[in-house]
């Protein structure tokens, strides 16, 4: 039973970024043994702790956060359309708040700019692209799409920068 519990924990550790595993992976596994043997620690707590930190480390060290940004942007754009709404201003409010939160969560300005821009671009595409097929003037629609996308990228960067600035102000 103990070997199986350890194997599950080792499997979780194997999901951490390579640099993390190389630096502290083995030691983490040893500590898991200590906590189980010496303190009879809750297995659920140990697994939950590992899962939470696994998510955090992967978000911090890989491009997974960009995937989350993309999913949020696409949801913001597509959900109102799927519900048959006329893309009200509230969508932009949601988008603005999310971009602020994303900006605030970034650890450096470069990542913030990339994710803010990506967020804006994907949101604009998801809002506008589905209407392209029925647009009478495709060229005009593409021009508008490009224009709005660029504007959204700029707004995304600005919102992200505002979030980044606010986070730094609040922390320091």
């Amino acid at each position, binding site marked *: 039973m103990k070997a199986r519990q350890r194997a599950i924990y080792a499997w979780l550790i194997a999901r951490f970024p390579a*640099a*993390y595993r190389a*630096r*502290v992976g*083995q*030691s*983490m596994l*040893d*500590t*898991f043994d*200590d*906590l189980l043997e*010496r303190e009879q620690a809750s297995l659920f*707590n*140990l697994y939950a*702790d*590992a899962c*939470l*930190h696994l998510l*955090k*480390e992967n978000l911090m060290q890989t491009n997974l956060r960009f995937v989350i940004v993309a999913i949020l942007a696409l949801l913001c754009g597509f959900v109102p359309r799927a519900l048959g709404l006329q893309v009200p201003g509230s969508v932009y409010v949601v988008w603005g708040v999310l971009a602020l939160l994303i900006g605030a969560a970034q650890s450096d300005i470069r990542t913030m700019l990339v994710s803010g821009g990506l967020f804006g671009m994907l949101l604009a595409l998801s809002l506008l692209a589905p209407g392209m097929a029925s647009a009478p003037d495709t060229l005009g629609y593409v021009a508008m799409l490009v224009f709005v996308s660029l504007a959204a990228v700029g707004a995304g960067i600005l919102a992200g920068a505002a979030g980044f600035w606010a986070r730094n102000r609040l922390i320091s």
Partner: protein
Amino acid sequence: MTDKRTPPLTPAVLHILIALSAGELHGYAIMKQVQQDSDGEVSMGPGTLYGSLNRMMAAGLVAESAKRSAPELDDARRIYYRITPQGKAALDAELQRLEQVVAVARQRKTGLAS
């Protein structure tokens, strides 16, 4: 004034550096030392401990030690960590910063009382 190049340390990093300033320790021993140093107020889970150790190693604040315990006393495979000169400097800077904060707070408190 606070040096802009050495930002304040997080509570977890500070506690780990304080624990390691007493000597080389392995992961579980760091957890116990932190608990002891804080009178049980700070209890660090493995995720917090190793997330912090990972970043501290990358920043050069701590390093893996060559020390291995005697097999009859402990598991010989255990990995020990030690504080680096850079880590000591960061700890000193943080303690100095905290002393300044406490001094200012005491002054304000005295001002409020009078």
